[in-house]
């Protein structure tokens, strides 16, 4: 395997990368982590970068992910938005798991949003579907099905108004 090199090469596997819920909101453009390598209060941030930065980039390929080292007394995460605005998360003396949970809570898509996206993707992916946003708009377009009633009228006995007694049967009227 070509990438099974270095410390913890499991981070390069697809299994590991796909098991992540760090899917950021659509209006986030840049994600920058500022920390030092040798200070004791920065060690947890260093661990977070080691284990979870690859997750972030894998799940958000359009976002620029940066690490800026040895330039700050306290570690922090800076996020730049579409509008040019930036948000700063102070992560001094927080554990790796706390940082992960905080990012998921504040900056990532909610489970409801992810479910909706998944549904839409399923609708588009399944070629047998018809309706809005699909290749076929109506069931009448599919071969083998009842043709469009606007072109070939449906037999009157199938129509609800005659079936449920809303009108009386009269073939001459139907023709």
């Amino acid at each position: 395997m070509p990438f099974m090199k270095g410390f913890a090469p499991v981070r390069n596997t697809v299994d590991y990368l796909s098991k992540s819920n760090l899917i950021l909101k659509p209006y986030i453009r840049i994600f920058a982590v500022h920390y030092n390598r040798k200070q004791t209060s920065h060690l947890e941030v260093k661990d977070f970068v080691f284990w979870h930065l690859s997750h972030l980039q894998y799940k958000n390929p359009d976002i620029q992910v940066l690490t800026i080292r040895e330039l700050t007394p306290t570690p922090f995460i800076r996020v730049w938005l579409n509008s040019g605005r930036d948000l700063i998360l102070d992560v001094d003396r927080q554990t790796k798991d706390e940082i992960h949970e905080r990012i998921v809570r504040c900056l990532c898509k909610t489970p409801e949003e992810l479910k909706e996206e998944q549904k839409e993707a399923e609708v588009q992916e399944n070629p047998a579907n018809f309706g809005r946003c699909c290749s076929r708009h109506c069931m009448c377009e599919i071969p083998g099905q009842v043709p469009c009633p606007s072109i070939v009228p449906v037999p009157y006995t199938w129509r609800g108004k005659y079936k449920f007694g809303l009108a009386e049967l009269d073939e001459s009227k139907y023709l």
Partner: protein
Amino acid sequence: MQNICDATVRIGLCIPRLACSQKVAVRYGRKPSWLGFAKTKEFRVPPPKNWPKNETEEMYLLTQHYYTYMKSLSVFQQKMYERSVEESMAHAKEISEDGEIGKILEEIERDNAIVRSIRETELIKEWKEIEVDIIKQRTLAEETEILKQEATEHELKFNMERLKSAIRDDALNEAIDKALNSMTDHNFAIDKQGNYYFGRHNGDNPTEKRKLSTIGLLE
């Protein structure tokens, strides 16, 4: 003349659909198209309407002008409507995004305040520990300094005492004469009781008495 029909008839505006078997007398309405032409009127050819050529051309040009004008107006209105819809959607999206970002910002500020308070308490604790260490080291340094000073003083005193009996340059000749004139008697004896007899001429008087164990002999 009244027209009697078997089905519903549209009289000007729409009326509710009646039961199919009812016969309705119609006064001002037209005969329904599904009834078909009457036999007398089936092959009737209406006389052609003769319009002057100029008038037809003018009518054609006027209608064309009218249609293009109306079409351009409707297209323009459609574009204006689409633009307004897009702008309102973008505005709504911005508002919703701004609202969301505002909430996120509040949450982030709250968490940052908690982290800040934790950092301040821990920094105070760390600085106190450092302060205690510094004081400890300072006292240790002062004590070692005192000990060093005492040691040097003791050594100085010892050397000064020792040097009291030292021979100076000016008294060197006298010291030599004294040494040459004085004779040291290194003779001594020890008896079984442990008495030391120093000097050749000691008169059998023990000068010193020690225990035999001190000179390595068994008692």
